[in-house]
């Protein structure tokens, strides 16, 4: 096994963008090689952080759900959120993390829709979460 799969993916991306794309015979092939190089770089970043960013999202969503439970125990979806806070992902496989992450995001969407009208502070906390969430999941890509 070569450690650091993300590094290998990034190296392959640079090879594709720097050597292979310019040597292609047509504009179509060159453009697609460039796009695939961009994707490999993105996937390299995702491979490295995938578990961490999902777990951070899950932990922060649980904090929001507990805050909602404390302040609005009778709000719609309270039972679903309480159940979520008591559970963990089935395993650290990305597919299992994704399923649990998706369940949390569905509950978050419901809570956000409700607090829009009911609780400005919690609304803002959810927007802060979305800011952190999108920053965590962003791709930093050089021009290729």
């Amino acid at each position, binding site marked *: 096994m070569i450690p650091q799969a993300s590094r290998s993916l990034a190296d392959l991306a640079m090879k594709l963008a720097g050597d292979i794309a310019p040597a292609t*015979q*047509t*504009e*179509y092939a*060159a*453009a*697609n090689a460039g*796009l*695939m190089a*961009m*994707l490999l770089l*993105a*996937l390299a970043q*995702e491979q490295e952080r995938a578990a961490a960013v999902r777990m951070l999202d899950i932990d922060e969503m649980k904090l929001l759900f507990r805050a909602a439970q404390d302040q609005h125990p009778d709000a719609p979806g309270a039972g679903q959120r309480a159940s979520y806070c008591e559970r963990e992902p089935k395993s650290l496989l990305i597919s299992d993390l*994704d399923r649990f*992450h*998706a369940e949390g*995001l*569905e509950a*978050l*969407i419901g809570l*956000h*829709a409700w607090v*829009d009208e009911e609780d400005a502070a919690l*609304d*803002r906390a959810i*927007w*802060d979460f*979305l*800011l952190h*969430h*999108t*920053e965590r*999941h*962003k*791709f930093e*890509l050089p021009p290729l």
Partner: protein
Amino acid sequence: MVPAALEALGLRLCGYLQAQWGEPVALAGIEQIPGGASRETYRVRLDLRGLERVVILRRDPKTSLIDTERAHEYRTYEAAFRAGLPVPEPLFLEEDPSWLERPFSVMAEIADCSSRVADLAGDEQAEVRARVGAEKWALLGRLAAMDPHALGVTSFMPVPEHPAARELEYWAGVIDADALHPQPVAAAAIRWLRAHLPPPSDRLALVHGDYRSGNFLFAPDGSIKGVLDWEMAHVGDPLEDLAWSLDPLWPWPDRHLAGGLLPREEAIALWEQASGMRVDREAFRWWQVFASLKGLAIWISSTEDFAHGESKEPILAVAGWVMTDRQNRILVDRLHPDAPARYAEPLL
């Protein structure tokens, strides 16, 4: 060397054109053109009794970034061409799949032009860049000023009573149908847009639907010779195209020049001058947020196409990963209570 499958496609097209024109048509060359993810696009060089003619073939893909009707797009090209707008001359629409396995259209090539605005980024290109920008938004203003009934497009496009409401619900439906993972940013944006819906538009126009850098051809002197990719055209509010053209995604990551061409306010002034309209800033705030949501909907839909469709075009995957990420950041930037303005200018 032309791959065999590509050459076979070119030869079959020649057979079709020979049947249409009633004279011998030989294949001189064929190459696929990148971009235009909603259709497979090819440049085909023909030999007509020793005379060269170049046409553009647009064939339906197995799956597409944007699900649109080819006849709708073709008839829009015809209307724009009749009205004197710079578009490629539409030659044939063929919906019988027996010719090329899937429906297709054929257009005249606009030669010696480029669509690559990124190539104009350097200081030495400043003059050409400014001319492209000036023409881009003046042309869009000209389109906004045209009566869609007089253009003839209302014979095949519905005329909405409330364009903003119709567009929002259409794209919200696309997200609902195609999202493979919950989309909390899109959901928040849809709620904001529903809560702040502007009144029905005062004036209706033919909306291009994807008017951005990359979707027009310009000559080396900076004059725009062809507006392309009308597959999302519809009758609607002209502010929709203006907001879409100014979305921070297009010049990413440098947002100081709209579309990589001109400062935003300059672009708006050119549009106002050409259209004879003043931008209603309150309504425009809504259309700017909508533009970013529509972009997100397209990227989400392309993710679904890549994951479940037959086409594995890399552009679909790029849209699903990279563009979704950027558009999410733009929307959060615009709707967060602090509006951090890291990725988007503050709403106008």
